[in-house]
């Protein structure tokens, strides 16, 4: 069953049961109340009748006028008076008008009620004021008001129930739609994202509800997915770029050495050169493969304590292994005294990849001029700054630099695919950090990375 239908049915049944219980309770208690009320009225009439009929006419004169003026006669009102003799009522006096059991109840308990079709009976045992004789007085009447009012109430409840049903159905439809709609929106947005446009993200709303949680969870997952995708692409782009040079050198050297007969020394020389290049190739491959580790250990990404100063030193080594022409100068002059301020919570492999990418970009686009890397810590952030004196980024293109595959207009002289920086930014964002790039064309670029301190104590 569709979730929407489920919600509708659930809502309708809850509302219906509630309304039914509610109106049923009202009907039941009102009708109960009306019955008791009517019997009370009949009893009072029985007492008045007894006084008027049985007592001394002089004494009951005023009562007679009052009852005439103010007590209107009930529909089909009848009075019966039976004398009690020796504690019993003679059967022939009662006749067929009333059941004997009812008269006996009144005789025994002093009062009683009885209902036959629409006729209501209330009886009392009345003792004359001089105490000489006892009577049973019974007043019966049709309860016109009760039957009339109760049927009116019943109709009222039924019509209001019908209206409520309409309202309930409309409300349930509306509610189920308003619950389902944002979910459908999310589904629609997610469907648009595939491996081709992994950089797309869902639009988070401001409120802190479950749906927003879902959106951000999904975005987090996309971040991780994109990072691992891009890491592979990054590896391919780096490999195709960096591995070619030594390979060409090896092939060229070997080809040249084999082109004709040579002396032993010549062969030795050629082989040494091939060896040298092969060593370089080996180093590069190792460094690249290390970077290509996505930080996933098969199950989850491990976030652990990372010391940023060590990380920077590792980055320098990696960069120089990948291309020995690249120069990196590290400035530890503002290194905080306490090592606690250098520890962040993160994934070392990913962070290394991010910073290596940024440093390598610096080296590449500044024609191997030295790139400065500095490290410091404020109270809440570890700050890594990478500054080069390269070609810079044109000011009006700065806003596009995080788009995948975007390359600035002045980079045509350099090989690249526009993968590195978006990847680095993703990784930094995964660590709740910030990445700021400021640049002026032909003068250089400064990248500022801020990573939140991990609050590790010694």
């Amino acid at each position: 069953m569709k979730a929407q239908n489920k919600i509708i049915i659930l809502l309708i049944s809850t509302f219906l049961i509630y309304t039914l219980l509610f109106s049923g309770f009202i009907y039941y208690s009102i009708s109960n109340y009306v019955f008791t009320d009517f019997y009370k009225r009949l009893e009072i009439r029985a007492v008045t009748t007894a006084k008027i009929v049985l007592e001394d006419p002089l004494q009951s004169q005023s009562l007679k006028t009052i009852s005439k003026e103010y007590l209107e006669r009930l529909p089909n009102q009848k009075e019966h008076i039976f004398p009690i003799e020796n504690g019993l009522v003679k059967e022939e006096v009662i006749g067929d008008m009333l059941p004997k059991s009812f008269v006996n109840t009144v005789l025994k308990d002093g009062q009683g009620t009885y209902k036959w079709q629409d006729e209501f009976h209330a009886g009392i045992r009345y003792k004359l004021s001089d105490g000489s004789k006892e009577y049973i007085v019974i007043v019966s009447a049709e309860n016109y008001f009760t039957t009339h009012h109760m049927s009116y109430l019943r109709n009222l409840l039924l019509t209001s129930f019908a209206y409520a049903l309409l309202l309930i159905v409309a409300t349930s439809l509306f509610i189920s739609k308003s619950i389902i709609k944002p979910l459908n929106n999310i589904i629609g947005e997610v469907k648009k994202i595939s491996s081709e446009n992994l950089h797309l993200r869902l639009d988070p709303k401001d409120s802190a509800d479950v749906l927003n949680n879902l959106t951000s969870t999904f975005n987090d997952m996309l971040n991780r997915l994109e990072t691992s995708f891009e890491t592979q692409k990054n590896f391919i782009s780096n490999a195709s770029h960096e591995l070619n040079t030594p390979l060409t050198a090896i092939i060229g050297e070997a080809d040249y050495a084999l082109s004709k007969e040579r002396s032993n020394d010549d062969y030795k020389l050629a082989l040494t050169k091939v060896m040298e290049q092969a060593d370089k190739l080996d180093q590069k491959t190792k460094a690249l493969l290390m970077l290509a580790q996505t930080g996933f250990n098969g199950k989850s990404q491990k976030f652990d304590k990372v010391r940023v100063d060590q990380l920077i030193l590792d980055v320098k080594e990696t960069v120089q292994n990948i291309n020995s022409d690249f120069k990196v100068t590290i400035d530890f002059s503002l290194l905080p005294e306490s090592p606690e301020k250098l520890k962040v919570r993160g994934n070392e492999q990913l962070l290394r990849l991010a910073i290596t990418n940024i440093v390598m970009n610096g080296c590449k686009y500044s024609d191997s001029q030295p790139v400065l890397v500095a490290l410091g810590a404020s109270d809440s952030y570890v700050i890594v700054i990478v500054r080069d004196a390269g070609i810079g980024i044109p000011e009006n293109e700065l806003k596009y630099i995080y788009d995948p595959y975007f390359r600035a207009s002045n980079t045509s002289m350099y090989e690249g695919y526009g993968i590195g920086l978006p990847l680095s930014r993703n990784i930094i964002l995964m660590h709740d950090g910030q990445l700021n790039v400021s640049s002026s064309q032909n003068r250089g670029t400064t990248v500022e990375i801020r990573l939140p301190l991990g609050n590790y104590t010694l």
Partner: protein
Amino acid sequence: MNSARKILVPTDFSVRSLMLVPETIEKAKNERIEILLLHAIVQSSSITDLLFFSEAQFLKTAQSDEFTDACRLIQNKYDQQLKSIYPRIFIGNNQSNFNKFLNANKIEEAIIMNKFEMNFKSKQSFDPSNLLKKSQVKLNEIQWHQSTAITHQPTGSLSDLFFSRIITAQK
């Protein structure tokens, strides 16, 4: 441990104006140091400004995040040696008041950056160098070396603080 040399550094609340602080601290070798960052402003004559002026509020709006970050950075770097580094405002341009301010804060030393042009956000602010020069405080004049930053452009952000000395060293 509580006695620390108190040094006054004029500031315009830019990261640039802090560049000489690390050098100053290192020159002091192992002495404990306290740094007071002085920002001078002229008292406004507007009655509403006078009524609602609050030093804390002014400091809060005048300091950028980068400036406070830079202060924390320096504090973290010289945690042992640097007792504290904090901004203060001096209001007015009256020499005798200024001398009283220096006395009250027990300042004996100040740094003046020659050829450093202060860049103020607020129109009220001014460079207190002249007041400092006329006071009794011991002055350390340091040449501001803007020209050294040619190869690596200054961005006006936090990163300037880092490389100032690398550049000086290269020179």
